[in-house]
């Protein structure tokens, strides 16, 4: 009666047709087959279309000479560089604007979020207006607005706004002096590194001492002294081996110094302002999620407002804040691709734009571009998850 199996008491197995495990396997095999078929179909179409139209594929083009200029590059680049190089230039520019954006948006968002909760009615109102205005207008519109309506109203280089002979602001960008290290400047850097190490050690020591004796040791002044003093002494001793390259008007443009082009400025300003409005809301709800009783309990223990925020409110608020903050960071990185609308040379603009157009390698280039963004997203998610686990897991 029972099917021959090792365990006589095992429940009978249905025939494979109605066995849900088998069914699940078959179903999954079918789904997988369908997905592969679809991918294969697309792949086949693409290959045959490419072939028929005589478009070459592969990564060979990356070694060819690009032949066009890029206005901003943090790594050496000339029109004689390769297309592969343009990829790197774009990538670095994307990373630059994303990193700056994340830092600035977090700071601004934190400030606005706290201002939103201020007891000062006017400040709270202004913060609310800020939030509601900027997060309800499309980012692209804001990017265009800052670039075409605001920054392009700045004066020409000849009529630059300036701070002495040091800093200039005009439609071509912000110009700041650039430090040029001279002979032996390495020693100053070394001194600074030593000072940093000393400060870290000092803080550890002060912490230990506080744990041991309860005596706090205010490291601020000593730290500041170390950080400024040590390098300064070495610097003076070596005869000030540092010159400044000042921006100055030569011919058409300012040369020398550090330049921040208006495309970067506009993109950064828009990304920061837009993302900060979301971050502010996140910060606010995070802080509100910590009940009022917590603050009261901390106050009645004698903690001052600063310590209450630092030791009681923030650690609890952070757990609420970090996950949505992560997705805001991801959004910011993806949104940095709007650079293409105003000509900031990011990855999409330089590589998926100009390079794609010069070479016609749509499939490879779009694939590489998407791959970069996917990787970035993944890395940020991983990092933030790790961080979140650190702040979240303390509870249990």
């Amino acid at each position, binding site marked *: 009666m029972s099917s021959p199996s090792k365990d006589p008491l095992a429940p009978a197995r249905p025939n494979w047709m109605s066995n849900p495990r088998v069914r699940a396997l078959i179903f999954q095999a079918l789904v997988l087959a369908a997905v592969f078929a679809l991918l294969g179909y697309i792949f086949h179409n693409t290959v045959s*279309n*490419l072939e*028929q*139209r*005589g*478009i*070459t594929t592969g990564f060979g083009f990356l070694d060819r000479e690009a*032949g*066009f*200029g*890029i*206005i901003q590059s943090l790594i050496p680049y000339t*029109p*004689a560089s390769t297309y592969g190089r343009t990829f790197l230039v774009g990538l670095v520019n994307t990373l630059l604007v994303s990193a700056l954006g994340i830092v600035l948006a977090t700071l601004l968002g934190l400030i606005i979020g706290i201002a939103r909760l201020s007891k000062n009615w006017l400040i709270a109102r202004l913060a609310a207006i800020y939030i509601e205005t900027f997060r309800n207008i499309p980012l692209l519109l804001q990017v265009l607005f800052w670039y*075409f309506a605001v920054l*392009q*109203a700045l004066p*020409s280089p000849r009529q630059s706004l300036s701070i002495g002979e040091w800093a200039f602001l005009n*439609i*071509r960008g912000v110009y700041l002096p650039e430090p040029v290290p001279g002979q032996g400047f390495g020693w100053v850097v070394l001194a600074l590194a030593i000072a940093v190490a000393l400060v870290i050690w000092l803080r550890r020591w002060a912490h230990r001492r506080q744990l041991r004796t309860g005596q706090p040791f205010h490291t601020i002044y000593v730290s500041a002294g170390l950080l400024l003093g040590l390098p300064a002494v070495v610097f003076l001793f070596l005869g000030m081996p540092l010159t400044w390259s000042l921006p100055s008007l*030569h*011919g*058409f*443009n300012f*040369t020398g110094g550090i330049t921040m082009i*208006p*495309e970067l400025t506009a993109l950064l300003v828009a990304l920061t302002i837009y993302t900060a409005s979301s971050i502010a809301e996140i910060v606010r709800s995070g802080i509100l999620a910590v009940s009022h009783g917590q603050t009261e309990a901390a106050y009645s223990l004698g903690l001052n407002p600063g310590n209450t925020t630092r030791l009681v409110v923030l650690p609890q608020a952070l757990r609420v804040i970090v996950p949505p903050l992560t997705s805001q960071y991801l959004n910011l990185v993806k949104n940095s691709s709007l650079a*293409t*609308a*105003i*000509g900031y*040379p990011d990855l999409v*603009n330089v590589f998926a*734009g*100009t390079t*794609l*157009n*010069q*070479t*016609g390698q*749509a499939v490879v280039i779009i694939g590489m571009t998407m791959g970069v963004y996917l990787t970035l997203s993944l890395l940020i998610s991983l990092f933030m998850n790790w961080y979140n686990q650190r702040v979240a897991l303390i509870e249990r």
Partner: protein
Amino acid sequence: AGAAHAGATFDAVKKKGYVQCGVSTGLPGFSNADDKGQWKGMDVDVCRAVAAAMFGDASKVRYTPLTAKERFTALQSGEIDILSRNTTWTLTRDTSLGINFAGVNYYDGQGFMVKKSLGVKSAKDLNGATVCVQAGTTTELNLADYFRSQHMQFKPVTFDTSDATVKAFDAGRCDVLTSDQSQLYALRILLANPAGAEVLPEIISKEPLGPSVRQGDDEWFNLVKWSLFAMLDAENLGITSKNVDTLKTDSKNPSIQRFLGVNGGMGKLMGVSDEWAYDIVKQVGNYSESFDRNVGKDSPLKIRRGLNALWNEGGIQYAPPIR
């Protein structure tokens, strides 16, 4: 050899009943949409001529506005049947992009435009200048080549659309605007103060602009090629949209008769009606009509014919004969 065997694009176009034409997103005189959404310009006329030849109706065109970056992918992918968007004919484009240029509807060369207030008289004075240029064009490459060969420095500011480029130039974001000379004239009228800008005399490149099609369909290639030639030949033969009807009935000139399909069966050889050239001239006009209307003396651009005059009038526009 009877009716030619038609290729895939030719058939597909015939079947769907209109020509899908890739144009620019807005370049006065070559292709831009007026306030009623009608597309106008020399590049647009090429497409209309093809439609006239194919269907006897120049309005059977649909337009896809493309940025410079998108244009080749759009043609390769089959999104458009013909790319008529001030595109320069080069060797790499013919070979590695899998496309064929069907001819030249405008001989151009890259030039520079500056504000008069800058006081620059020659491109050689542009060392260190900031240059506005449209992304993904040969212009961008020529620019780099030119400055390299002159041992000069420059900063490129690139935009997707010519509109953004002009706006940036107007605002003073850059000292120089570089593009094909024809475009410079076209773009100049978009400046707040057109008289305040001038085009420098140097021409740093050859820019033969023309329509292109995908490789692999010679019939379609032929049709586009000869639609363009027909406009030139019409000018050569003195056929205009005004006199074409009278010439058709009255003219005894065998060339004209062949051209207008009165005899010769030229259309059949290409797989279209024999009246194909008649339809082009009647509905689109000959080359000089198109030129004058869009960029020449009857337009705000006021570009002189120059290189684009027929070969026997001092230019280099020359079309093979229809016979």
